[in-house]
């Protein structure tokens, strides 16, 4: 019923508009087309000026109502994010200036130089100085933006610091899985052909490589230590996903067959962010940013940024995947040897 009413209203509005438009055409023929044309010329010129003012107010209004809903400049939760925010600010200033000047000129000129009986248009086909001016000035401004941008870009994409922790993050339709390297600090080898979820090996870890034996696999949330650089090793099992970290201002695709990396230092704990944003439900989210299929929207991950002590406490409760997938399933008789194996690995890592 609702839809039907809506359609009826639309159709009626349509017919009325068309009839009015036809009528104005007849009127114009009676009035004299030239006269009508000049009249509508004046109306449109005024409308263009009004549009300028309403538009400028609209820009202010949009900022007034939506400005609080965005990730504000200066609230980035990572070191790289601060750089991104700075770059955003510089670009906003430069482009904002151009935006206001050119839009005002465009609509002002349109209004100011509307057709008048006695006005002779100025024959002005070209002017080398002016053209030079607006080639060189934008080029200089852009060069400055490029220079800043590239300095930050190389800092952000440069090699991770020596002391960075490593975490592997793997996307698949439609979830994220995380792997911590364990005490040895090394992510053991894996191969997608070894993936076997019935054997608790959803990442395809190769148990023959002892480096896998202390690797911890988790479905999330991802735990990170505040103030400590972390290097994410990003991969995908099926299609392309993307690790989007809006509060850290970072993003990196997860490509099957081609691991990518991304490093940063989280600067604020989740608790701090809850205080700062005043949102008690606040959580760092991982948003899949690359279209990955029907469940794309639901591909959500969480990150907890915490202090070293909190992290250590949490880590102590985690079981290596090798233990879950292999050791815990072995016959009780073989239990002792397995325990020995674990102990010996632990020794090696000391």
């Amino acid at each position: 019923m609702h839809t039907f009413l809506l359609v009826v209203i639309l159709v009626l509005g349509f017919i009325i508009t068309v009839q009015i438009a036809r009528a104005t055409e007849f009127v114009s023929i009676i009035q004299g087309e030239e006269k009508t044309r000049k009249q509508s010329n004046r109306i449109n010129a005024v409308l263009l000026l009004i549009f300028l003012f309403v538009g400028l107010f609209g820009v202010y209004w949009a900022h007034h109502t939506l400005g609080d809903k965005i990730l504000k400049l200066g609230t980035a939760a990572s070191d790289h994010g601060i750089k991104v925010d700075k770059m955003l600010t510089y670009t906003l200033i430069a482009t904002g200036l151009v935006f206001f000047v050119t839009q005002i000129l465009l609509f002002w000129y349109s209004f100011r130089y509307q057709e008048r009986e006695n006005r002779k248009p100025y024959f002005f086909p070209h002017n080398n100085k002016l053209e030079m001016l607006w080639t060189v000035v934008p080029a200089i401004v852009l060069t400055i933006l490029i220079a800043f941008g590239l300095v930050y870009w190389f800092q952000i994409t440069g090699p991770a610091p020596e002391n960075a922790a490593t975490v592997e993050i793997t996307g698949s339709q439609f979830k994220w899985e995380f792997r911590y390297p364990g005490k040895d600090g090394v992510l053991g080898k894996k191969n997608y052909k070894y993936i076997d979820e019935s054997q608790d090996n959803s990442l395809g870890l190769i148990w023959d490589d002892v480096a896998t034996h202390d690797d911890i696999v988790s479905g999330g949330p991802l735990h990170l230590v505040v103030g400590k650089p972390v290097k994410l090793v990003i991969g995908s099992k099926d299609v392309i996903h993307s690790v989007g970290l809006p509060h850290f201002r970072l993003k990196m695709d997860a490509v099957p067959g081609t691991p990518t990396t991304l490093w940063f230092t989280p600067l604020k704990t989740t608790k701090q962010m809850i205080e700062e944003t005043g949102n008690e439900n606040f959580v760092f989210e991982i948003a899949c940013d690359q279209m990955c299929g029907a469940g794309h929207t639901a591909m959500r991950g969480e990150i907890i940024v915490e202090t070293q002590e909190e992290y250590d406490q949490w880590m102590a409760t985690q079981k290596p995947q090798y233990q879950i997938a292999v050791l815990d399933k072995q016959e009780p008789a073989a239990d002792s040897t397995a325990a020995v194996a674990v102990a010996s690995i632990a020794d090696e890592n000391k």
Partner: protein
Amino acid sequence: MSDTLHTHQETASIGHHAADHHVHAHHKETFITKYIFSQDHKMIAKQFLVTGIIWAIIGGLFSVLFRLQLGFPDQTFPILETFFGKWAEGGRIKPEFYYALTTMHGTVLVFFVLTAGLSGTFANLLIPLQIGARDMASPMMNMLSYWFFFAGSVVMLASLFIETGPASGGWTIYPPLSALGQASEGSKAGMDYWIAGMALFIISQLFGGLNYIATILNMRTKGMSMTRLPLTIWALLFTAILGVLSFPVLLSGVVLLLFDRHLGTSFYLSDIFIAGQALPNEGGSAILFQHLFWFLGHPEVYIIILPTMGLVSEVMSINARKPIFGYMAMVFSMFGICVLAFLVWAHHMFVTGLNPFLGSVFVLLTLLIAVPSAIKVFNWLTTLWRGNIRFTPAMLFAIGFVSLFISGGLTGIFLGNSTIDIHLHDTMFVIAHFHIVMGVSAFFGMFAGIYHWFPKMFGRYMNNTLGYIHFWVTLVGAYLIFWPMHYQGLAGMPRRYLDKSSWVSFSQFHSLDAMITVVTVLVFAIQLLFVFNFFYSIYKGRRVRSQNPWGATTLEWTTPIRPGHGNWEGEIPEVHRWAYDYGKDGRDFIPQTEPIGEKESSH
């Protein structure tokens, strides 16, 4: 329908009964050769335009449907189930269907409307008329160009009706998603239809493009040197060159995709475990496809925007009664855009794990392309300065084009800078950026062209009042729809999310999304009003009574009001000057056909 068309044409030809010596007038034309398999460039232009309009309605309707889901995620629309059955069970759009809609919206509007509908229409209409040629270099190839496009359209349209639905991996169809049927419903048969449809479309573009280039280079009338060409023709030339050089790369890309899909090759596939199964493919690179795709994909956005730049320059100069400012600068900036368009593709791939050094090169080249764009904007502004401006609907759309091009162009400076792109990549900010700069503004340029050359196409005017309503609602609506999306992007909200309710970071825009949807429906309705105006005016519009209704200098206005096949009765006129002598020496305008006077000032 056919009867009306016939009588319509008969009345039309009264105007040039005397045209017995007309070069092509002796053709015995049947309905089929005249309206269907026509080789007259003007008729082919109309075919492209009408097909483009139909596609635009379909593509626009898709956006209205998925905006319903975005704006009112909690509501149900039973009418959707009536029309779409299992795709909208219970009146809610399913995710698969949502992605199919967005994918087809993008594909249809980018390729079928803003490439074929735009270039196809105006290259066909204007090239012979403005350079002074009787037709294209190869009218036959020209006709084939339309019919391959039509065939591609049919295949793409057919994919909407198959059981597993049309392609749904986004208009960029990145593999492995698009390569593996297990990954998504739309990657089953729908993807093959997409590839087949696009292959036909690319053939059409090559036929068309080669023809346009050959015609512009070889068939200019006496005196029409390259530097006397109207900017429309320059724009269409660069567009055609871009298309001819880049579309084959997309074709190669999708053919390899077809091999991966059906022949077990591994061009794009490696290390994949999907649907509980490890695939044997190893050694491919999913990123390779992105390189091939964007090698067309980026020039493609200039293929869309360059013709409208030409149309807008022409319309603006005519209605400001002033020469376009900086003609040569305009030509060189279009040349610059044309060359740089090939060197910026990887700015779509900053976060794919691309080598950071390579990324930096693309940053440099990408921001460089802002310079010619800036030159063009400043030149348009100077063209308006001290003019005597007539606000025809075409002129209003041209002014709207410049406004939108500025707004959307400036946000490109954010995204082209890789540092900011890391944050804003694939967010709603990108949606706002490209919809304004190459979606809406390209439509504005196209509308400017349609309103302006409608009298040449059909010998009648479109209704002005409807034109004004169309302009104002569309301009205000476009800003209302896309301006706020920048804020969604700055909140980090990814594109292609259909329900944000489960997210802490992105669920704060509920009322905004509803507002955008309502405006979208309104703007779409106003476009239907335009379509009505278009078809109504073909038959019932005010008749054109003067040969040169806008007081323009270019050659198309020296033809009869309703030109027959061959365009000019008798000799093709000779050209003596450039196309922009408006307001010179106190004269309103001097046609290109008028010889330079002895006392005329030079510039």
